[in-house]
């Protein structure tokens, strides 16, 4: 997933949670980047017709941006589910965040052939938990710890 897709996914999740535009500061916090970097990428997304920036309000995805963001979220869900269910990685959330930049959507689609994902994906993604709400994990340590 390239950097732009990571931004689109983050904007989409904030937009969903806030039911409105994503404030640049929140976006920068979520991605752990500087506000200047976030602004720079927002400008790029705007020029590609994927997002619209409203002064003092934040950034909002266009319809095309939403499609791309949902694809990116689905890729992320596949990576999380694959790590949790196939490789039995307990720290699947943090590892998925590390790996998402290197795993392309086409690669995730292939990994998707060996996992069981619900048809409602990615709508079942829970931003609070940073994981699919339907994800069943076989190890209990992490769910207890969280």
């Amino acid at each position: 997933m390239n950097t732009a897709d990571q931004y689109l996914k983050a904007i989409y999740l904030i937009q969903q949670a806030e039911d409105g535009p994503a404030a640049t500061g929140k976006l920068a916090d979520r991605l752990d980047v500087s506000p200047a970097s976030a602004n720079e990428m927002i400008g790029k997304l705007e020029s590609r017709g994927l997002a619209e920036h409203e002064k003092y309000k934040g950034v909002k995805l266009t319809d095309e941006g939403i499609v791309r963001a949902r694809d990116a979220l689905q890729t992320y869900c596949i990576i999380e589910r694959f790590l949790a269910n196939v490789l039995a990685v307990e720290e699947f959330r943090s590892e998925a965040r590390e790996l998402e930049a290197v795993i392309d959507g086409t690669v995730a689609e292939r990994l998707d052939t060996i996992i069981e994902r619900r048809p409602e994906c990615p709508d079942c993604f829970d931003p609070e938990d940073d994981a699919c709400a339907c994800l069943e994990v076989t190890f209990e340590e992490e769910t207890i710890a969280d």
Partner: protein
Amino acid sequence: MSVGHSVTSDHQLARLLQIGIVLEEVVEARAHHHYQSLAEEDRDLDDEIESLLEHAAEESAEHRNALEELIAGLEADSVPFEEIETLVEAQYGQTKPEDFDGILYDQLCNEETAYKFYDDLIKAIEDSDVEFSVDRATLLSVLRDLRAAERDGVERVTTIMEERA
């Protein structure tokens, strides 16, 4: 969350190599599965596809070994092939491609996906200045060889598809 494309630790590299192994296992298991479906039905009818699938399965096994050698240097576990084969069977066994075009298309996706994976991984390693436990030059050389083999695989399948079009 990390924004960017570089591999930043031994652990992350090991995990990516593990994913490479699983991808190769998926290719091998699917090729084997298709091969078996040909054996039951039309094997005699198409030597070219039979040989393509046989080659794909053998090549994937070789690639797995190469990746396993790399992750052995990183002290990470490999993923047993039988486990992946079972998963492939469970998810894929009931929906085998209906015809030879389906098999070829699936094989093309396999090769293209593996190529993309190695290409992204190589770039992510090149972008990183982390010193890994395995020798960087050897690591990149092995991965570039695997990527080249996948590129050849894409060409092989594409040629067959074009001849049959």
